[in-house]
């Protein structure tokens, strides 16, 4: 067995350039595939982490039809009761209550549809991180009268600046059109310019006053100590408060989970295609190796080397060659991902374009052990499959070619 390994290993290096090129191709292909995979996963994870932290929170409670209909009267009458329960439950870290209204924002130039979100400035920062997106001015704790916190993008669109007035019109609880004037206290920017253009934050008490002249709660958002508990908490809430609908982050934003699943499939697809290309490389190299060694293989069969051994020899040769490439490629990828997950991949040169899709400019690739295992299995399977044909080809040779001129 040892000699079979030796012969296979030395055969690999009969054509150092040819084997070297294949090795480099395997290493580069795997590296590119795995880093792309890590980048894609990192991007999606960053996006979903970010969305959860900045707007979604872990779970939200609404009137059962609010998310679909968004009518002002679809509020949560038992908000105080729910809030007490949330405050008393150990699994919940923080929660906050909001009032909401869909409105038209006006400027001397133009009018645009926005979503007004009335937040409780004492508890909101414990649930979402929107306040940290501030780029200019002050958050809603500003001293200005009726402060409003809007996206840079909206400010640009409406041609407004800090200190300017923003007039919004919307339906109140009695379906009467009402108008409110707010003073822009600060501007924010998130990775998504679309979000920035549509979401307008005011203080909950100011929005409630315009909606109903009394406190109104349309939405309760919460963060848990352990995000994995979300399904359990949501189930408890729905059982205890039948009049409202509690939903987890992924129920509120199913596209986020879909995105997670899709990117996973897509990335394995990419790895699959790369491996297909590499398998053809392996096949080609090994077939070349066999065609130029027809006489030698015939001689081995003639002198009494069994077909099983000839097959093993060829398999070993191609498996050793490709697996050493694969091992090197995976190690390199592992190290690269390790480094990149700390330092990030900065695509800010394309940053503006990416922001349209809500993608951060700096991505920290991630891949877990399981991903590496799956890639390793794909690689080994592709290698073995690509090696079988050359092996079979070798044993189908007729030994008499060795003896013939």
């Amino acid at each position: 067995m040892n000699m079979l390994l030796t012969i296979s290993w030395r055969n690999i290096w009969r054509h150092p350039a040819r084997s070297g090129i294949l090795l480099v191709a395997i290493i580069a292909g795997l590296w590119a595939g795995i880093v792309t995979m890590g980048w894609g996963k990192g991007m999606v994870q960053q996006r979903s982490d970010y969305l959860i932290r900045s707007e979604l929170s872990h779970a939200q409670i609404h009137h059962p039809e609010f998310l679909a209909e968004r009518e002002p009267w679809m509020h949560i009458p038992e908000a105080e009761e729910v809030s007490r329960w949330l405050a008393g439950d150990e699994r919940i870290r923080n929660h906050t209550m909001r009032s909401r209204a869909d409105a038209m924002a006006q400027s001397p130039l133009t009018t645009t549809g926005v979503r007004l979100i009335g937040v409780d400035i004492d508890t909101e920062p414990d649930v979402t991180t929107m306040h940290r997106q501030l780029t200019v001015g002050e958050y809603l704790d500003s001293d200005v009268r009726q402060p409003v916190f809007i996206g840079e993008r909206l400010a640009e669109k409406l041609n407004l600046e800090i200190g300017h007035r923003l007039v919004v019109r919307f339906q109140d609880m009695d379906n009467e059109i009402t108008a409110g004037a707010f003073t822009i206290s600060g501007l924010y920017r998130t990775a998504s310019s679309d979000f920035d253009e549509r979401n307008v934050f005011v203080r909950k008490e100011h929005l409630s006053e315009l909606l109903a002249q009394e406190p109104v709660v349309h939405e309760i958002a919460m963060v848990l100590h352990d995000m994995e508990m979300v399904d359990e908490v949501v189930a408890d809430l729905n059982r205890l408060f039948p009049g409202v609908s509690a939903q987890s982050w992924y129920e509120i934003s199913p596209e986020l989970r879909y995105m997670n699943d899709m990117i996973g499939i897509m990335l394995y697809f990419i790895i699959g295609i790369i491996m297909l290309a590499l398998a053809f490389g392996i096949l080609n190299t090994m077939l070349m190796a066999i065609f130029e060694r027809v006489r030698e293989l015939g001689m081995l069969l003639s002198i009494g080397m069994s077909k099983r051994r000839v097959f093993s020899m060829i398999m070993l040769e191609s498996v050793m060659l490709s697996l050493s490439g694969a091992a090197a490629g995976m190690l390199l990828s592992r190290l690269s991902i390790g480094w990149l997950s700390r330092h990030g991949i900065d695509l800010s040169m394309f940053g503006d374009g990416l922001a349209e899709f809500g993608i951060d400019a700096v991505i920290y690739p991630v891949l877990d052990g399981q991903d590496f295992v799956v890639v390793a299995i794909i690689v080994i399977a592709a290698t073995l499959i690509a090696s079988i044909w050359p092996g079979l080809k070798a044993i189908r040779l007729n030994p008499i070619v060795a003896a013939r001129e």
Partner: protein
Amino acid sequence: MSIIKTEKLSKVYNPDTVPVHALREVTMSIEQGEFTAIVGPSGSGKTTLLNMLGGLDRPSDGSVFINDTNVTGLSDKKRIDFRLNNIGFVFQHYNLIPVFTARENVSFIMLLQKRGKEEMQRRADQLLEEVGLGDRKDARPGELSGGQQQRVAVARALATEPRFILADEPTANLDSASAMNLLDLMEQMNREKGVTFIFSTHDQRVIERARRVITMVDGRIDTDEVRKSETDAA
């Protein structure tokens, strides 16, 4: 007792398209200890005959017996095994594994026979000494002359302790000095160890060294002549 016997051995290549009658009803036998040359013009069927004797190819008709085994009837798998343990081969070229040293080439075939590692090493060294390559054991075929390569092939053929050695034009690629040296070696092994050699050639000086000369013409045995050589007389 004959170690090889053929009965009405025939071989037709491409029977369905352009039939080539390479062997026509060849009946012959070889005795233990022979030093026999198969001679004849190119295309007369020497290689085909040796391939049949070595179980490398199947006859179209007739049979080959080696001792009492009907080689023709063996399965492919059994024939490979049979060759390994009963027949030594020396070809005209592409004899050796280029990535192996002379010693590894000789050891390798004993590994196929599943001999012990120590025995393999010892025998390989001893055989290489005997064929006069004691100082080139670690050379790879590419570093050896054509004559030296053929000597390694002879050492390898001897390593398995075969019943006989088949050599198809073993000297055809060698200059005449190397050819005569190789013949000396084969003759010595035949004389000292009683190894049976059957080799094909069309080199007149090689033919002169044989003790039995079977001449092939057009797939048939034309003459079969046993000579008394000096070594026999001595």
